């Protein structure tokens, strides 16, 4: 049977890894290619690069980071951030990325999901959803532009629509949990996992090994993603996996 996956996420700006706490404060945590190779050796099952460069030069740098990383690591990796066309996808896939994450562009133009899936296969297309609980909606709302813009769209509906259009996976970030280290957002993750039949990667809030156990069991996630706790060595991937194995969850 498939194992549950542990995925470190590297936020990359102009070729350097940074991590925002609640999407605002940035700290520099190193060279993306080196860090990717390190996570590969430490047992990461996949990697995600999120390109937060704002400039054309920054995005061009990302293609080079992808090319170098593909030559260094032996696990699959996803690249997301600022991808808004099939040509953008092609450039990154050619450089060696295995999957492409799309977020704001998919909300603006859902056909990008189906175009990408038809061209490269569903397994290449990861739809990233940033969601925040909206009491007036009585549900989670999708945010775009790196969590700055509320879209008015309900997260569960959007997840189902993304699957229908051909997404191969959902990368679900809870904006309420992100940066808190109090654990993943279990109600949100579970609700989305139960709404779709494609794999869901839970993101936001991981602080300790048991948080992964909870999101895989109670949250029904297929993979758990974290950034700062791995970057700042608060916990290792190996510790997370040992804890999961001890609790009967199959990991690599």
């Amino acid at each position, binding site marked *: 049977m498939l*194992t549950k996956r542990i995925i470190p996420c590297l936020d990359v700006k102009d070729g350097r890894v940074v991590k925002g706490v609640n999407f605002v404060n940035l700290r520099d945590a190193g060279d993306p290619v080196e860090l990717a190779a390190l996570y590969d050796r430490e047992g990461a099952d996949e990697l995600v690069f999120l390109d937060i460069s704002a400039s054309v030069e920054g995005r061009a740098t990302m293609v080079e980071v992808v090319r170098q990383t593909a*030559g260094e690591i*032996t696990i*699959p990796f996803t690249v997301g951030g600022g991808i808004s066309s099939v040509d953008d996808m092609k450039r990154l896939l*050619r*450089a*060696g990325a295995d999957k492409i994450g799309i977020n704001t562009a998919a909300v603006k133009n859902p056909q990008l999901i189906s175009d990408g899936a038809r061209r490269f296969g569903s397994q290449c297309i990861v739809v990233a959803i940033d969601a925040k609980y909206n009491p007036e909606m009585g549900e989670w709302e999708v945010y775009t532009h790196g969590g700055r813009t509320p879209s008015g769209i309900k997260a569960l509906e959007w997840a189902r629509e993304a699957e229908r259009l051909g997404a*191969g996976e959902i990368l679900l970030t809870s904006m309420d949990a992100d940066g808190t280290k109090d654990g993943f957002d279990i109600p949100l993750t579970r609700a989305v996992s139960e709404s779709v039949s494609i794999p869901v990667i839970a993101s936001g809030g991981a602080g300790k090994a048991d948080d992964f156990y909870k999101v895989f069991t109670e949250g029904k996630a297929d993979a758990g993603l974290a950034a700062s706790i791995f970057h700042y060595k608060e916990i290792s991937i190996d510790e997370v996996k040992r804890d999961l194995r001890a609790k009967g969850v199959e990991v690599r």
Partner: protein
Amino acid sequence: MIAIIDYGMGNLHSVSKAVERLGYEAVVTSDKGTIAAADGAILPGVGAFGDAMDNLRAAGLVEPVKDYASSGKPLLGICLGMQLLFSESEEHGLHQGLDLLPGRVVRLNGQGKIPHMGWNRLTFHQPSPVLEGLEEGHVYFVHSFKALPEEPRDLLASTDYHEQVAAIVGRDNVYGMQFHPEKSGALGMQLLRRFLELTK
């Protein structure tokens, strides 16, 4: 020199880099002469079976690949490249394969999510040079169809995904891996190394 056969199906960069990291020269090529002269050949592939065979035919590579296999030099099909080694496939209609291994390619039974994507554990079935000295472990799969080798002896390793799925097949000098050894961590690299050692 290892020829990575380029017929327009998928990204060959990762396979080529993995071969180089293991200390072998890799050449991504669609040139018949270069393929024939290689010490080993790898047939990668991502996409649909019918398109892949059409591309191989359009590139005039069907006979060169078959000739390569009958030369006795090691040939490895990866993912869709493994499926192409078989006689035929049911993916979107019936398509003829390279017929280097007897058997058919059929859709996964659908008890699990399709595609079968992620890390799954190998079970070894019989001794083979590509498995020598290695321990069973997890490798990375992405596929929706599976090969059914006609001859049980051609099935070297399988994985369990709500059904038995052929993971490594092989006969004489022809091998196939359904998963991506270049994306499968240390075990993937060891399996690739075992194959490459056969080219020496």
